[in-house]
């Protein structure tokens, strides 16, 4: 875990260190399915963030009231309440977006990020920390969807945020708005993220070795471990 338990740290954890998509690989179904455009991706991310925030807050508040044996069912009831709110509001206010996202809004109920954070974080931590954790996770998820949606929208339909950005002479690659393109994009981003992480680790180890040599210490520097919680 992080050295300090400050809320800011909880928030930043979700952005990169424990990014739900790139580090925890949670919630990949909506990631792969709805990211044909930035707008869809961000809408999905925000909807999930809303549900995540309020369900984390509620679960964190009532955690001592829930008997351990039925906790999952209780979490689902809380989560489903907020998903229903999102679903109905979207249908009323953004009917087109609601149609584009289709069944994936109701499916937020079983999104592993939300249940994962409820189980791993909200049920063990204070309300304030849970709230910041939920916001961080939601922001990380939304950012990931934004990046994936951006890449797929540019390559697959020559557009970004619905505006044409590439000239007509560039033929859009249809594969990127098909599921296969989602897998390709996500795979490449995973590769880049892992490569970056590995380089950072190597740097830390190199530094530690250099420090050790100069100090002539015998102790071997322990490899820094990735912070992943059971989720």
């Amino acid at each position, binding site marked *: 875990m992080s050295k300090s338990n400050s809320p800011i740290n909880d928030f930043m954890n979700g952005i990169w260190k424990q990014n739900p998509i790139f580090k925890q690989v949670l919630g990949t179904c909506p990631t792969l399915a709805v990211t044909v455009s930035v707008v869809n991706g961000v809408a999905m991310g925000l909807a999930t963030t809303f549900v995540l925030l309020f369900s984390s807050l509620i679960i964190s508040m009532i955690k001592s009231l829930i008997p351990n044996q039925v906790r999952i069912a209780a979490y689902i009831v809380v989560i489903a309440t907020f998903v229903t709110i999102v679903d109905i509001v979207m249908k009323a206010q953004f009917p087109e977006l609601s149609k584009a996202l289709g069944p994936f809004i109701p499916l937020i109920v079983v999104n592993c990020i939300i249940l994962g954070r409820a189980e791993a974080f909200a049920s063990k931590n204070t309300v304030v920390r849970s709230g910041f954790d939920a916001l961080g996770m939601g922001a990380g998820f939304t950012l990931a969807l934004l990046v994936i949606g951006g890449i797929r929208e540019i390559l697959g339909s020559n557009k970004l945020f619905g505006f044409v950005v590439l000239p007509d002479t560039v*033929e859009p*690659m*249809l*594969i*990127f708005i*098909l599921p*296969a*393109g989602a897998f*390709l994009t996500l795979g490449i981003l995973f*590769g880049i993220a892992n490569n970056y992480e590995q380089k950072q680790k*190597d740097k830390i*180890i*190199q530094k530690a*070795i250099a420090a050790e040599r100069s100090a002539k210490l015998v102790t071997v520097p322990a490899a820094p471990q990735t912070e992943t919680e059971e989720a």
Partner: protein
Amino acid sequence: MDTATTVELKNKTILTSTPHVHSKLSAQKAMWLVVISLLPPLVMGVIYFGLYQLIVVLAALAGAVMTESAIKYIRKQKVTIFDGSAVITGLLLGLILPPGLNPVFAFIGSVVAIGFGKEVFGGLGYNIFNPALVGRAFLQAAYPVAMTTWSTPAMAVDTVTKATPLSLFKFEAIASKGGVDAMSLFLGNVGGSIGETSSIAILVGMVFLIVMKVLNWRVPLAMIVGLLLFSGIFWLIDPTKFASPIHHLFMGGFMFGAVYMASDWVTSPVTNKGIWIYGMAISLIVVMIRLFGGLPEGVMYAILIMNGFVPLINRYTKPVIFGEEK
């Protein structure tokens, strides 16, 4: 970081694992022999479809070689473009593209073929799927319209867009009207991809490869036997509905796939028994897709699917070690 000191073994007995008998045929030499064997289909393709096809093939070739060099440079590995494997991938991809394709697409296809078909798995010898087919499958999904626009041989006057024999059989029930002339199928004077139409040129390449011991003859043979068998069954059931086995053999990319694609050393089984299973299974899938699938041609997908099964085939056809009980 691994800082273990390396122990030098100078003037000592060198212990190596088997095999101790080495063939003079290196991977590099084999690669260039395959490149030579690809020349007849290329020449026939250029004769039939016009000089423009050379640009398409060269674009694919350039894409493959440049991507390979770039990736090797970025990963700080030895640049291995002279082993010929990237050249083969580029050539193969160029030859299975439709004539008159935008060279930019051919280039992109090659980038994907080398980048995602080969190098992400670790380079030569580690790829699960045939790189050229990965590139083509990508193009098929990325540019479905351009990839299914076929022009007929330009030997007459002008290049005309026309259906391939396979789509004639599939969508216009030509089997009941006597089908396509088998001789022109054999010579390649029909619509299709640049290098795949001329079966005779592919046969020349095949014989060359078999004589040079680069190609395991069991791969094309297993595929041909399988195709004749499976398509023959359906032909006997209803000759007015299904194409004859001979037509199936010389139509579309089957011969090209059997000789150059399925036989790839890396992505085909290592045991002879495994090769028979692999070849027959490819043919079964080809016949199923051609006769009952939504697409007119299925050689590409059949080979890619069976590439995925190769590790499994290898595991189940492992020969019993001498002295071991079965």
